[in-house]
């Protein structure tokens, strides 16, 4: 394998919405590289469906303070309120900017950007559902990703496509560069740089049933976690209520925004009992728990009573074809039913990581719970935790997050690069990685220690023990399973010994991150003895503000995590009971 060295002012790892938005900000003013393991347009931002919220008030009266109120309440008061204010205030410009760059939003009759309703978004602090989500049919993320990539093409941004970053070099607490593996050749590339932004997306692949892509394996958080950087709020993982039964493919909340209804096996609209005022448009954590409760009470449909129905049949063909064309096509393709005439079998699906790499509101990575800044290292998007989503993210706020905080991370890189001098990285900095790869290649392959089997066992056990409802017992059980899986991973072997597109080798390294994500999630969940947002402990069913209004910081400690805590930054919204 060859070792090739490059020198850049800044490097962005990841070309989804967050990475591309950061690149647009930074590229004109520095020598910048964007490194991505997928071609940019294949990033999972392209899978986002329903919309991106901003109080444009195109349909009805709205203002960003109401958006902030909803976001804080939706977060179960764990979001940092000053950060939420930034998110909601800058949302308006973020949408307009995308339109100016060419994003083909759906339009109202008067030519303005169309807006629709979405879970947890209300007018006047809870009065009624709000028309706040800007959308392009049900392929908003696709259009955002395409538009940002197009903008980057027009600017001549330099991409390293199908290069997988596997390591960061930090010396004396300062960033020196990253090391990447070129998929098509197996060569190692050392990128000397003083500023790196991680925008590697989520890690839904720790679960079996997920809306996430195969490539979402927590690489950025994993790389930093292994270097001693903590991960924030890992116990908060969002399960979206409406994944296609068994497959987990997402059916956007937009389906309910447009009037879709959830029903149990008797056809009852059960959300009326759980959230009397906004019903099917309650936030995701509540709806997912309601579905799980219906199923456990025997009200689920199907031979195993293990799903509920998403009913769109009353919406009519025109609304469905115009506003929800893609998701109804998924149903036709994968379930072979016609959603215009028949209700769709759904179950909650692992969807979104609220937790991740801790950052401040400028994308600067924090190396501890005391807000110590790690110079030259930034993070944005789903890989990061600002925190604006707290214990439960509202729909449409992630596309917003990647735009607002992607831009801010790009600005921070610029600022840092303009006031620091280039520093050099040694040629031997890839030695550890080369050794690790050679070890993996040289070990003889055995079936028992194959990456496929270990990952399968990981996903099935995480699904069983840590999904919607958790207890001391299930979490302790999972801790033991993880120890076992870690031991098997130490002996992992691979079949493919080649250099060119050795995707098995990459999957093996990704599995290491999946184990890290699982270990930190379970340790954080076991420690938090309360229920808040997406973290629901049946043995501690109440929210406990006196004890737990704080963010967790998990530091890697062998195969487990040491936990420390940081107080939530409050603001004008006083914590209150979360009813809808």
């Amino acid at each position: 394998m060859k070792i090739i060295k490059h020198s850049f002012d800044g490097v962005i790892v990841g070309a989804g919405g967050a990475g591309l938005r950061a690149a647009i900000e930074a590229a004109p003013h520095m020598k910048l590289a964007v490194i991505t393991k997928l071609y940019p347009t294949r990033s999972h931002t392209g899978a986002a469906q329903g919309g991106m919220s901003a109080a444009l008030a195109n349909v009805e009266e709205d203002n960003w303070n109401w958006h902030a109120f909803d976001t804080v309440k939706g977060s179960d008061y764990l979001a940092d309120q000053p950060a939420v204010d930034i998110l909601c205030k800058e949302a308006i410009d973020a949408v307009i900017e995308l339109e100016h760059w060419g994003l083909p939003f759906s339009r109202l009759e008067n030519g303005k950007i169309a807006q629709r309703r979405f879970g947890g978004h209300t007018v006047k602090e809870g009065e009624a559902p709000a028309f706040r989500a800007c959308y392009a049919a049900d392929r908003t993320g696709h259009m955002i990703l395409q538009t940002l990539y197009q903008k980057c093409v027009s600017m001549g941004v330099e991409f390293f496509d199908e290069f997988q970053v596997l390591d960061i070099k930090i010396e004396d607490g300062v960033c020196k560069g990253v090391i990447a593996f070129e998929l098509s050749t197996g060569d190692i590339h050392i990128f000397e740089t003083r500023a790196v932004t991680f925008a590697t997306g989520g890690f839904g692949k720790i679960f079996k049933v997920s809306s996430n892509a195969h490539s979402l394996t927590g690489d950025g958080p994993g790389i930093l976690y292994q270097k001693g950087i903590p991960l924030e709020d890992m116990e908060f993982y969002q399960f979206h209520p409406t994944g296609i039964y068994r497959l987990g493919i997402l059916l956007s909340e937009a389906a309910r925004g447009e009037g879709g209804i959830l029903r149990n096996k008797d056809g009852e609209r059960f959300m009326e009992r759980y959230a009397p005022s906004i019903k099917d448009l309650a936030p995701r954590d509540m709806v997912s728990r309601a579905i799980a409760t219906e199923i456990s009470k025997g009200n689920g449909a199907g031979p195993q009573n293990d799903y509920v129905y998403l009913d769109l049949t009353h919406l009519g063909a025109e609304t469905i074809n115009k506003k929800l064309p893609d998701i109804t096509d998924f149903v036709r393709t994968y379930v072979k039913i016609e959603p215009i005439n028949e209700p769709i079998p759904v179950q909650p699906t692992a969807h979104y990581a609220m937790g991740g790499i801790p950052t401040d509101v400028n994308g600067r990575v924090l190396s501890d719970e005391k807000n110590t800044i790690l110079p030259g290292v930034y993070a944005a998007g789903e890989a990061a935790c600002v925190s604006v989503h707290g214990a439960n993210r509202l729909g449409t706020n992630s596309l917003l997050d990647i735009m607002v905080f992607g831009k801010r991370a790009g600005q921070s890189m610029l600022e840092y690069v303009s006031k620091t001098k280039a520093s050099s990285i040694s040629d031997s900095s890839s030695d550890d990685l080369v050794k690790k790869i050679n070890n993996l290649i040289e070990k003889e392959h055995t079936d028992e220690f194959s990456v496929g089997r270990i990952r399968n066992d990981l996903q099935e056990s995480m699904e069983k023990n840590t999904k919607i409802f958790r207890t001391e017992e299930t979490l302790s059980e999972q801790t033991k399973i993880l120890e076992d899986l870690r031991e098997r991973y130490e002996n992992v072997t691979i079949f493919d010994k080649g250099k060119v597109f050795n995707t098995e080798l990459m999957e093996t390294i990704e599995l290491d991150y999946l184990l890290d994500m699982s270990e930190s999630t379970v340790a954080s969940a076991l420690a938090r003895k309360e229920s808040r947002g997406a973290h629901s402990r049946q043995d501690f069913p109440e929210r406990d503000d006196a004890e737990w209004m704080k963010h967790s910081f998990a530091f890697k400690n062998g195969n487990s995590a040491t936990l420390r805590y940081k107080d939530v930054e409050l603001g004008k919204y006083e914590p209150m009971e979360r009813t809808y």
Partner: protein
Amino acid sequence: MDIDLKILRYDPESDRKGHWEYYTVEADPEERILDLLHKIKWFEDGTLSFRRSCAHGVCGSDAMVINGENMLACQVLVKEVSNPITIEPIRGLPVVKDLIVDMDPFFDSYKKIMPYLINENEPGERERLQSPEDRDKIEDTTKCILCAACTTSCPVFWTADSYIGPAAIVNAHRFIYDSRDEGSKQRLEILKDVNGAFRCRTAFNCTSACPRGIQVTKAIEDVKRETLLNN
């Protein structure tokens, strides 16, 4: 049930040319072809290489030739294809390994048509207005996920890889018909070239190959017409 697969393999480090390999896997009729490829890779033969990410037809990674036709492996179910299933890489782009082809020539063609909004006017503080009718004109072509299924199903492209190809023309269409764009003249100039839209012989392969259901041939015809009007 047992499914038989016949896969065209190529390893640049040991093969001089490709060879067929045969596998049998247990599968439900509801499973995706991609799931079968994963079963082979994860539990039988880790060397089998292919691209994939989203697994539900939105990222465009896994276009391949399945029983002779271009499809996304994640969008086709076992029960929709006849057994045995033959799988080959898409045609007309250099094969790098197994089902993975070199996509650079494809993305280079895409970049040639200036795939970004061109409008020099100051847009102001709010959104530009666009009527729903104008927005509808680009509904079809904005759906493209750059999977290359169309371009690599085109007989003209197979014989002349200098042809810019259907996907690039679809993306040109997306901007030419956008009421906010002012770069049509430049794009049509590029598409007038010998390797541009007029190379199309309306074989319609591209339209049947497109996993997003885009009317690719119609888009090419629209662009040809605009090119003539522009003259």
